[in-house]
């Protein structure tokens, strides 16, 4: 069965290693913070200028001067640091952030990502997404494998305006974990109970399927 949003987030959190600095985008990526394994420590970076983002505050802790990149009120963990936007993006663009997790509309076999603009619809802006995909050492894209009409989001070539080029190496969808390399998607895991055939039918870009495709472990 296809994974829920929470299950995708759980699978994402398995990627984190002890001591990682991680930037999580809005939506499913943010949920991954709830599933960081208890035996490791990660520090969350919020691009508005906070390294060491904590949970949302209590009513008593509420402070208008403490927000995250999604403009939600947050707290800082012990050992956090706070800095200006240029410093924050020096961390991102300089390759100091270990992991970025973000959503997308489309990804293609060249590792290109489209995530910010649908022509003829209202364009709100890219925020920090273009900086994040250009700068992070490891980028994981989380999204549903197909849109609500059943159209694949894993393409031979993106059709929407791009957020970044040649930058995506790993995708975690509701159906599968895939690596992007050699101009193809390499299927490495499937969601429990999801068949290789279903993944093949919903992957429009070149897909390489090994002899054995293990199920994700939770």
């Amino acid at each position, binding site marked *: 069965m296809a994974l829920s949003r929470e299950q995708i987030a759980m699978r994402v959190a398995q990627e984190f290693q002890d001591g990682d600095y991680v930037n999580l985008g809005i939506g499913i990526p943010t949920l991954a913070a709830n599933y960081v394994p208890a035996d490791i420590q990660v520090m969350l970076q*919020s*691009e*508005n*200028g*906070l390294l060491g983002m904590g*949970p*949302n*505050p*209590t*009513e008593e802790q*509420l*402070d*208008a*001067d*403490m*927000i*995250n990149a*999604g*403009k*939600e*009120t*947050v707290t*800082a963990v012990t050992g956090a640091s*706070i*800095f*200006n*936007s*240029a410093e*924050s*993006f020096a961390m*991102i*663009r300089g390759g100091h952030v270990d992991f970025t997790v973000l959503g997308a509309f489309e990804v293609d076999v060249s590792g*290109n990502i489209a995530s910010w*603009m649908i022509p003829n619809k*209202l*364009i*709100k*802006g*890219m*925020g*920090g*997404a*273009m*900086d994040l995909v*250009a*700068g992070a050492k490891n980028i994981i894209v989380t999204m549903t494998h197909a849109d609500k009409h059943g159209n694949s989001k894993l393409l031979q070539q993106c059709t929407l*305006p*791009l*957020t*970044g*080029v*040649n930058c995506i190496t790993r995708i975690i969808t509701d159906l599968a974990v895939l690596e992007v390399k050699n101009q193809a998607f390499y299927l490495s895991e499937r969601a429990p109970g999801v068949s290789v055939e279903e993944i093949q039918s919903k992957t429009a870009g070149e897909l390489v399927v090994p002899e054995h495709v293990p199920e994700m472990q939770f």
Partner: protein
Amino acid sequence: MAGFDKVVNSYAEAMAGLEDNMTVIAGGFGLCGIPEGLIAQIKTMQTKGLTIVSNNCGVDGFGLGILLEDKQIKKMVSSYVGENALFEQQLLNGELEVELTPQGTLAEKMRAGGAGIPAFYTATGYGTPVGDGKESREFNGRPYILEESITGDFAIIKAYKADRYGNCIYRHTAQNFNPMAATAGRITVVEVEHIVEPGELEPSQIHTPGIYVDRVIQGSFEKRIERKVVAK
């Protein structure tokens, strides 16, 4: 004003010299760390044709959003502008121009502008609509685009504390774009929660040295929260 004392006593003095068609760089991220009173003063002055450089454009009825009400803004340079209906309406009507700029590039454009660097190369935006028409060049096998820096006629800043000499510190994530914006204005105006005497701030803890600051005004802030989320 005498010597390095930069404190002014009215918003009219704080924004004196602002004219139609000028460029104003504003600090703030969403509604966090915005110079509320200076924005209100621009509305009072009814200055038109402004180019505003700011990560966002406030919300309907608050922050920079109030400058849309009388169509004072000609162009916004921002990374994300999706929070107000009036903005959307004026954009669709062609009354407002927007130059969407990646957030890190925007911060760096201000920083470079203030530091006398006219342009810089960045990988951000290469191969995307942001890179269209811009010079590109390879360094160590990777392509980069050339982005020009930004300076403004005015920079409007919100700080937590400033001394009379204009040395500023910011509080928590209300820092955001303010320090870079402060360096990039021909006239930089800082609205603060607390004005203190020179010597009261620890010199090594100052975020914005007073050399960048022309005017300091005591503000009073609503500090509206855009997305209040509390722990369950």
